[in-house]
């Protein structure tokens, strides 16, 4: 696992939000929006590694941890895809271009994409879990020749809730094998219906040496990780992004503690080998 990075660019330290102006806003699905942000009081952007998150502060509403979903090679635009599931995330989603959000970060560990050079890469995403993995897609496609086969196996509830669908054709042209599956669909849908582990069973990759990156609902992560291991991928090369109630983002408050780990500081990206027992704990 690559070490956690504490923020370098926050102007007042990791606990002080910096003002960012919303420069773009796009609706992805009925309850999900993608926002582009730029620093309001300085030039430059916010360098980050794939898998890291920021704390987004909607003034007057509160602060939420949101994974960065943009291209690490273009840090000038801070991109977040946010699902409106609570009061604060809904306030973030309502933010219009020109308005200000507070940003702390980036925080946390990251997907070890560089370590997968020369290997097959299997990206497994469920629902909005594709957002934290989109930077991995960018990083792999920006240096496509450095990797073996690259697959995206993406599951969603129904076709209308799939993220970034308009980008899939371009990703395929650049060498990403994209497979999509949904839980249920209207008759006439020409894609697959079923569960993500079904895609894993059928996917064509060299399990011996492959790196897998998983993000989505924890039930999906657990079943998918076990399917990958059944295929022969080593648990230490299966990486998962965990979500917990992150508040301070720097490992002080303890809200996101999961066994011996603080998800905000030690994660959110862990090896499945390290997290496997936590998935079986009924108390957490």
């Amino acid at each position, binding site marked *: 696992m690559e070490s956690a990075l504490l923020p370098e660019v926050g102007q007042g330290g990791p606990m002080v939000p910096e003002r960012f102006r919303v420069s773009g806003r796009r609706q992805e699905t009925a309850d999900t929006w993608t926002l582009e942000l730029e620093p309001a009081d300085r030039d430059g952007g916010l360098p980050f590694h794939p898998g890291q998150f920021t704390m987004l502060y909607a003034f007057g509403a509160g602060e939420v941890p949101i*994974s960065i979903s943009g291209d690490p090679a273009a840090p000038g635009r801070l991109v977040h895809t946010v699902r409106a599931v609570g009061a604060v995330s809904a306030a973030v989603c309502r933010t219009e271009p020109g308005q200000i959000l507070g940003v702390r970060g980036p925080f946390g560990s990251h997907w070890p994409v560089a370590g997968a050079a020369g290997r097959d890469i299997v990206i497994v995403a469920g*629902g909005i879990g594709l957002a934290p993995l989109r930077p991995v897609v960018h990083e792999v496609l920006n240096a496509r020749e450095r990797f073996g086969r690259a697959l995206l196996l993406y599951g*969603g509830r129904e076709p209308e809730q799939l993220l970034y669908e308009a980008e899939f054709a371009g990703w395929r042209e650049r060498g990403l094998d994209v497979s999509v599956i949904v839980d*249920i669909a*209207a*008759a006439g849908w020409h894609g*697959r219906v079923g569960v993500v582990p079904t895609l894993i069973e059928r996917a064509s990759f060299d399990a011996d040496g492959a790196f897998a990156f998983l993000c*989505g609902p924890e039930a*999906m992560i657990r079943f998918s990780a076990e399917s990958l291991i059944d295929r022969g991928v080593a648990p230490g090369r299966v990486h998962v992004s965990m*979500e917990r109630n992150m508040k301070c983002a720097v490992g002080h408050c303890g809200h996101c503690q999961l066994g011996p780990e603080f998800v905000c500081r030690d994660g959110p990206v862990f090896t499945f080998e390290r997290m496997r027992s936590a998935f079986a704990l009924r108390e957490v």
Partner: protein
Amino acid sequence: MKTIDALLAEVPTFRGLSPPQLQLIAGCATNVRAKAGEHLFKEGEGADVFYVIRHGAVALELHIPARDAVTLDTLHDGDLLGWSWLFPPYRWEFDGRAQADTALIRFDGACLRGKCDSDHELGYELMTRFAQVIIARLQATRLRLLDVYGVGAPA
């Protein structure tokens, strides 16, 4: 061109059966094709056959009064399609419609039930293999019942 028993030897469900067993099963099978959009069977019809998909895709659909039809599952290369032929009342529970031009192996259910009745070893082998398919689809259905992509999914 491969014989049907040679094709069956490559199907995951039948992998490992002995050559005589494969030949017995192949005696109840024929190659068929379905065009994209064509129904292989419809809910309520007699289920006297089942299929193995060689190439293509088939959607299992359910029509709900006053609502649009829904696709409950899709099946693809190598998948087994249909187990209603195994048990009375031998009736399809859903529609089966080809999503694309699809090549299949079709089995006569009554023919195969007769062979299983007279060869219990074959019957046990087939029942075990069908049970594995049914369990895998039951587990997948249970996972979907969790509605894991509903509210509460990670942000």
